[in-house]
């Protein structure tokens, strides 16, 4: 009998299953565990048990959530913040875990740096105490976010207990039009699925439009999987993936790389593999998109008008729309393009890679922003590359501030916050109430759309601004 056709999700799962209990819980082997300042609760549990880190060689630390983007020499905006960075340094040193620390040339955001360093590879099982760990799926890794108790468990055992997820395939056909990016694609997928639509599922992204995306763009797409409720999103590795990985510092080299590629070629889902759910989207029909509300599912094309709760039948949904309009200070049926913007943020694990910076700079070049903005590259190496390409000058000449790398204004932990009541066009991943600071109002957009908003002071269709320019 021929073997049952398998999805990439099942193939990686099976390769890491140590044992399965009768109740279906499976103990999985972990190839990489990434830790950051927020992992201190996990390290605390290890200390409370007087335990050791089982595999420091498979554990990598990075300072990102609390690091200052300006005045790095301060080592943090307050004593409490500095303490978070100190704790990470102490915990990693104590357990002999390598750390990309505040002063390292390779420092940056965990979901940017680990792929950049060649630590994230196809077929690996990767965890991190951060829900955007789904990002690493862009390289064909099975990667998901975990909580502090699970962090502690992985530190002590290099394993994790999991239930098999259901499998969802999100197929995107066609070609994204010019000016429409992976961020717009992801926002459309989330709006289509709903913010809890993929809960309990692992998503495989497939189809021509996904294959056409660069690795950086796939990272943006996979990054946002959790905003549809899915703990992980994955794209089957292909020639682009292998080319991205080859030569990176911690990736296999030479003959070992060739052998790895042979293994990676076996990963894509088998032709007849069965998914529990199939969703289809048409890339060609998508336009630049932004969120207007307080859930990532509340996203609309830039040419649309806001919903009116009076028109919505589902009472829970109508109530959500009413509450979001009120918090955001917006009116039903107003045009998306009439929403004014007080500032922009270009950064975060979603959109801070070199391509993102290039896309924003292409819109801003030779133009002047009418609102303030912060640009925080995804890693210090990306910052360096952008400066070699002269992108920093474009941002600064446009009037935006060009700073160091970290999670920054996506989550405001380091003190980079949006003032109460202010409205920010942000390339980050969450428009939750208060996410960017108490009372802050967030509109999620692509880097190009953030640049367009900076130029006009309102949500703006970037496409006319790209006319005659190389995107």
């Amino acid at each position, binding site marked *: 009998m021929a073997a049952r056709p398998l999805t990439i999700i099942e193939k990686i799962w099976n390769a890491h299953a*140590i044992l399965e209990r009768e109740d279906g*819980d499976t103990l999985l*082997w972990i190839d990489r565990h990434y830790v950051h300042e927020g992992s201190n609760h996990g390290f605390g549990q290890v200390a409370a048990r007087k335990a050791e880190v089982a595999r420091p060689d498979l554990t990598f630390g990075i300072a990102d959530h609390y690091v200052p983007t300006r005045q790095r020499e301060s080592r943090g905006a307050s004593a409490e913040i500095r303490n978070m960075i100190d704790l990470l340094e102490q915990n990693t040193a104590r357990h002999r875990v390598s750390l990309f620390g505040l002063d390292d040339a390779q420092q940056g955001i965990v979901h940017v740096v680990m792929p950049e360093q060649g630590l994230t590879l196809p077929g690996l099982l990767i965890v991190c105490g*951060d829900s955007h760990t789904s990002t690493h799926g862009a390289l064909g890794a099975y990667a998901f976010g975990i*909580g502090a108790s699970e962090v502690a468990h992985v530190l002590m055992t290099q394993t994790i207990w999991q239930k098999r997820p259901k499998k969802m395939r999100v197929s995107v056909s066609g070609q994204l039009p010019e000016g429409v990016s992976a961020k717009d694609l992801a926002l459309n997928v989330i709006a289509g699925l709903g913010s809890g639509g993929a809960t309990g599922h692992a998503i495989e992204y497939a189809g021509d439009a996904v294959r056409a995306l660069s690795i950086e763009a796939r990272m943006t797409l996979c990054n946002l999987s959790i905003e549809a409720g899915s*703990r992980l999103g994955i794209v089957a590795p292909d020639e682009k993936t292998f080319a991205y990985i080859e030569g990176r510092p911690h990736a296999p080299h030479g003959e070992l790389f060739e*052998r790895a590629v042979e293994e990676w070629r076996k990963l894509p889902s088998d032709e007849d593999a069965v998914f529990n759910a199939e969703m289809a989207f048409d890339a060609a029909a998508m336009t630049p998109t932004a969120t207007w509300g307080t859930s990532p599912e509340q996203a609309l094309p830039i040419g649309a008008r806001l919903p009116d709760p009076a028109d919505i039948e589902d009472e829970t949904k109508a109530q959500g729309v009413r509450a979001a309009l009120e918090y955001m200070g917006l009116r039903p049926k107003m045009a998306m393009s009439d929403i004014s913007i007080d500032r922009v943020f270009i950064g975060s694990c979603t959109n801070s890679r070199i391509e993102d910076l290039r896309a924003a700079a292409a819109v801003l070049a030779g133009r002047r922003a009418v609102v303030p903005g912060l640009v925080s590259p995804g890693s210090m190496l990306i910052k360096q590359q952008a400066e070699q390409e002269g992108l920093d000058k474009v941002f600064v000449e446009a009037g935006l501030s060009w700073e160091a790398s970290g999670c920054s204004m996506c989550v405001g932990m380091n003190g980079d916050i949006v003032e109460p009541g202010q409205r920010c066009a942000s390339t980050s991943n969450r428009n939750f109430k208060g996410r960017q600071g108490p009372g802050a109002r967030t509109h999620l957009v692509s880097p190009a759309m953030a640049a367009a908003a900076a130029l006009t002071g309102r949500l703006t269709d970037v496409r006319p601004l790209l006319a005659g320019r190389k995107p």
Partner: protein
Amino acid sequence: MKPFRTLEGAACPLPLANIDTDQIISARFMKRPRSEGGYGQYLLYDFRFDEDGKARDFALNDPRYSNARIVIAKRNFGCGSSREPAVYALADYGVTCVIAPSFGDIFASNSIRNGVLPAAVSEADADALLQSAHVLAGLPVRVDLAQQTIVAGNLSVSFDVPMQWKARLINGWDDVDMTRAHAGEIAAFATKYESENTWALPKR
């Protein structure tokens, strides 16, 4: 971990969908050590207090629910960030059961590890509980994990919880102890896996 069998106490109605973990505990509180007074004081803080720290008109500030042991909400409770401090905030406040039609995956998994039961009910049952006069009066609601039932006065509904999680909660099992019982199998797996997949080890 303390076993979870039954629970009886007031249930705080939060008739909202998509209460994300940023709402349950704001990032700005997470740099404070939990050992200093617990995280219960930060639970749903921006719902409870305005910019000046004045109490808002919000269920948890209502004397009927201020000592709640249970929270009832609408769909997708605990979506978003993986922050386990969201569960610490509930547990430290005294809430050890959340009733909702669905939960964020990571939140639910974190709950189990802290003895907090995420009880999944149908949308209709969530609405019935949220509108129940018994619940609204702040009278005790009874949750029975073995039976998977919730009783609020004359209203009785059943709830779902994955059986693996049910066993963990009822027995108070600790993951790390459970895993250590398999130390031999883990070591054997690691040896075989790493010899067959040398490429998977990070290059130093």
